[in-house]
């Protein structure tokens, strides 16, 4: 039996973060009532003319820069002609032979052998990125289909990879990397549930060692990362089986049935596409100057995987923490600002990656308003770590007051003073409390003396409670043991 390997190419559609459509200034938002975001251009009425959205061009150039593409000096607009009720003009304005971005690579991160171990990184080649308009949304019911043009005309980029992916896991990693970079740079929200990122997958298999590409099939409109992973896996198995039995693969479009987990061929009659591309006479080309590109480049953040590498190497953070801090550029900025004020990256990383994120996800509106607008500042986190380092408060107190710091924006020192949370290192005072707790709790005392080491924890807990967490835990342990001996 021969072994087969898969060769996969992806076309990823991503909606850009714009307030208006690609070729007219009708508003675009997700989740509005049907057909409330239209105008005569969106409806394709006679006599209307398209006008470019400058921001969409800028975001496309920035996407290209995130992925190291060559930005074309001149790009132009073409009509892709076909009839389908989701687009009223009977053509989609796209870019055919002169796209805005050429070449480039997407760095992917594969899953590691364990959750806390980083997987392999690899660069996947891109063919191009072009800019076009999205189509409307169809809903099917028994006797017909319903058309909502709200989404029609929304700025959409198509990121086209070379056939340079070799497993379903790599395909999923490719989508994750695009999503991470686009969200990171503020170019798109990439919410797949809202259709802001969709993917077509081209899959073929060939005998291992063969250089020649096999016949490919295409799966369209995959709308989740697991859908891409599962459908690609299914297609690889299906094609390998067919070839093994001496059968033939047909170049066709197949639909992924996500509920039942299989692909099925669409009617091939509909496949005879002849889009008759030609330059759109209504739109002038775009010329992109070097200065403009440089200016847009300067506004981009460091790439997330570059930042992750830096956090691992320069700060010695564990992979899981570095990867969490690099999911979001504001979070990374916050972390780095705090580290410049208190050079304890591990402790600060811990508070930012755990406590801060937990508070953020607890208040669901807070995340959308952005970290910079929150009352808590990076300096407060740095100060909190300093207070622990200097022995002013215990680690436990630090965690306990974090929610208050987050909500009120008060500095940790203020909270510590106001609540009298300073760690007590007064030996006589703590010893007094220890003696009282021992006297009040004969049961754990007896158990400890009978050799149950764990019983001391109940006494420690009592002391910490009585001192409201202010006693130094190491000192409490020492004193209890002394008194019990």
């Amino acid at each position: 039996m021969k072994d087969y390997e898969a060769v996969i190419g992806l076309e990823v559609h991503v909606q850009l973060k714009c307030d208006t459509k690609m070729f007219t200034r009708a508003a675009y938002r997700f989740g509005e009532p049907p057909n409330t975001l239209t105008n005569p251009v969106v409806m394709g009425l006679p006599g209307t003319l398209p006008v470019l959205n400058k921001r969409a061009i800028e975001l496309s150039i920035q996407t290209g820069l995130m992925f190291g593409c060559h930005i074309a000096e001149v790009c132009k607009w073409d009509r892709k002609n076909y009839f389908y009720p989701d687009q009223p003009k009977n053509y989609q304005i796209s870019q055919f032979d002169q796209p805005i971005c050429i070449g480039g690579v997407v760095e992917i991160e594969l899953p590691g052998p364990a959750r806390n171990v980083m997987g392999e990184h690899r660069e996947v080649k891109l063919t191009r990125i072009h800019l076009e308009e999205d189509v409307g949304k169809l809903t099917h019911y028994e006797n017909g289909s319903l058309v909502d043009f709200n989404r029609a005309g929304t700025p959409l980029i198509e990121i086209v990879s070379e056939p340079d992916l070799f497993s379903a896991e790599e395909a999923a990693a490719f989508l994750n990397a695009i999503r991470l970079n686009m969200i990171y740079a503020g170019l798109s929200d990439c919410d797949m549930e809202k259709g802001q990122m969709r993917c077509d997958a081209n899959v073929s298999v060939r005998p291992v060692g063969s250089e020649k590409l096999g016949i490919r099939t295409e799966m369209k409109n995959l709308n989740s990362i697991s859908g891409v992973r599962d459908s690609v896996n299914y297609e690889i198995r299906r094609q390998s089986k067919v070839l093994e039995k001496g059968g033939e693969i047909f170049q066709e479009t197949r639909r992924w049935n996500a509920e039942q987990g299989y692909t099925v061929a669409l009617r091939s009659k509909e496949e005879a596409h002849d889009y008759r591309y030609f330059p759109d006479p209504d739109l002038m080309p775009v010329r992109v100057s070097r200065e403009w590109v440089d200016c847009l480049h300067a506004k981009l953040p460091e790439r997330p995987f570059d930042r992750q590498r830096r956090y691992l190497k320069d700060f010695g953070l564990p992979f899981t923490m570095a990867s969490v801090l690099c999911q979001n550029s504001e979070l990374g900025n916050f972390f780095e600002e705090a580290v410049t004020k208190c050079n304890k990256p591990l402790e600060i990383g811990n508070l930012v990656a755990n406590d801060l994120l937990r508070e953020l996800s607890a208040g669901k509106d807070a995340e959308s308003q952005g970290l910079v607008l929150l009352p808590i500042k990076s300096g407060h986190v740095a100060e909190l770590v300093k207070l622990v380092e200097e022995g002013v408060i215990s680690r436990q107190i630090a965690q306990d007051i974090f929610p208050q710091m987050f909500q009120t924006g008060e500095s940790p020192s203020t909270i510590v003073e106001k609540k009298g949370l300073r760690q007590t290192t007064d030996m006589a005072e703590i010893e007094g409390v220890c003696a009282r707790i021992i006297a009040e709790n004969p049961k754990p005392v007896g158990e400890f003396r009978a050799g149950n080491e764990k019983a001391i924890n109940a006494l420690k807990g009592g002391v910490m409670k009585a001192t409201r967490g202010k006693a130094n835990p190491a000192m409490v342990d020492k004193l209890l043991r002394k008194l019990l001996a």
Partner: protein
Amino acid sequence: MSEETSIDIDYVATLARIELTDEEREQFSSQLEDILDYFERIKAVDVAGIEPTAHAFPIYNVWEEDVPEPGLSPDEALLNAPEQRGNQIVVPKVVEDA
């Protein structure tokens, strides 16, 4: 009429989603072939050294800022819809599946 400009009128009609009667097929075939013949004449012009362009004037970067402007109400948007339901246009069922 030269052989190379001969047009497949049925293919063109299919792409355009229109049905033609036999009479119309003949009529439009000959009209379209006249147009293609005219392109043959244009093709005869020597354009060596001329940069291909889709536009007569070298104008670039005609754009607007990404600022929304008022559009149509759903009622206005659907004035031409032959049938509607819940502010959506009803079209014959589009079947994607095999």
